[in-house]
């Protein structure tokens, strides 16, 4: 007999408990996912409208100059790494951090600075000696714009103040509830070409050249507040997307764990029944053997 009956029973009981927990977490994540997806959806119009506005301004006026649209030689790059606070979400954080480490493996530590959103990413990066210069942890599952406004402003200021020459967003893109993919995309300077992989180009060619606009106070004045705002908005939408991905990923991981627990329970129940049968058989044969010995 491989295992005693008592051990098997205890084992099955404990797996059943675990299964109940993973099942509950799966259900919770499923409902959070739905809400997070709605939030990500409802944040889209703002970013889209803002992009249209910037596109129109860029097109309506020639020779608009703004530091956020200008490429400069890259000496230092800022990375905004968005991970989750909690684990038990499958490969959600691990995949992202691996992709990040892969991307920056040739970048010397002095030439980067990191803004970490989420406890998992922060811990990982600090432990490996990456220069984490700002962090937020403990964000709610459904962050409000105001929750990250301060850090978004700070981050964008790193670029405008010339501390970094490029800002890169590192987050899990939410493709579908089943697919999240690490995405590493340049945020600033704003790129005009979608193919560059930016979350959104500043001047995509969706609309025909529009009518000329009038500006108050001036095109530059409007642009100088609009562009930083736009960059912050992009950080916010990346965060919402990452959150939706986190819940989706956790839901999938917990679903798989629940299934695996079910299989284990089946397996152990089978073993338990066999062991019980064997014990009974052995007992009977011992009794029979004993009786035979007496009769003989």
């Amino acid at each position, binding site marked *: 007999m491989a295992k005693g009956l008592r051990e098997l029973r205890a084992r099955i009981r404990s797996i059943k408990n675990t299964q109940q927990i993973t099942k509950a977490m799966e259900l919770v994540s499923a409902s959070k996912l739905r809400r997070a997806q709605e939030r990500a959806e409802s944040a889209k119009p703002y970013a889209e409208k803002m992009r249209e506005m910037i596109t129109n301004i860029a097109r309506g006026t020639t020779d608009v100059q703004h530091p956020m649209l200008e490429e400069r030689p890259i000496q230092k790059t800022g990375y905004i790494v968005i991970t989750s606070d909690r684990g038990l979400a499958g490969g959600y954080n691990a995949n992202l951090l691996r992709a990040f480490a892969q991307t920056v493996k040739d970048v010397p530590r002095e030439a980067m600075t990191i803004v970490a959103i989420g406890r998992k990413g922060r811990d990982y990066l600090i432990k490996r000696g990456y220069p984490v210069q700002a962090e937020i942890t403990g964000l709610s599952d459904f962050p409000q714009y105001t929750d990250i406004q301060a850090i978004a402003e700070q981050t964008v200021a790193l670029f405008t103040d010339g501390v970094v020459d490029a800002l890169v967003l590192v987050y899990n893109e939410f493709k579908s509830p089943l697919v999240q993919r690490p995405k590493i995309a340049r945020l600033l300077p704003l790129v005009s070409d979608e193919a560059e992989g930016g979350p959104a180009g500043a001047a995509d060619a969706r609309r025909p050249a529009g009518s000329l606009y009038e500006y*108050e106070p001036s095109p530059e004045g409007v642009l100088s507040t609009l562009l930083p705002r736009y960059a912050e908005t992009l950080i916010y939408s990346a965060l919402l997307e990452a959150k939706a991905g986190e819940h989706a990923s956790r839901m999938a991981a917990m679903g798989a764990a629940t299934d695996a627990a079910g299989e284990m329970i089946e397996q152990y129940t089978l073993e338990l029944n066999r062991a019980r049968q064997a014990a009974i058989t052995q007992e009977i044969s011992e009794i029979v053997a004993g009786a035979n010995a007496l009769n003989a």
Partner: protein
Amino acid sequence: MDAFRLEIVTPDRKVFADDVVFLAVRGVEGDLGIAAHHVPFVTRLDIAPARITFPDGRVKRVAVSGGFLEVRGDGVTILADAAELPEEIDLDRALRAKERAERDLEKARDLEFKKAELALRRALVRLDVGEDRRSS
């Protein structure tokens, strides 16, 4: 008067979308009235209530905490940093924000002072617009 499409969106959600005939807002350079067929126009908005007139003559006010206004041929968009309809405003919270901002103004300086001042203005606009709930 011809109607035009007005949309008010914030980073979190779409607050308002409907056909209106007139919109009064406060831009950084002064008050503005927008009717249909206005020339394409972009400006930054101040912290102030926006007044919307519907085709049937009803008037609604919206608390707008800064942002941008864009007038295009096919409609008007307000990209607000935050915006609330009268029925959405939490008056107690606005009142608390007002008191806190007033306290901060007493002792704060420079940047802190500026922040407290803006917070106070947002709270006052919300309180003002929130009053509409009773009359309507």
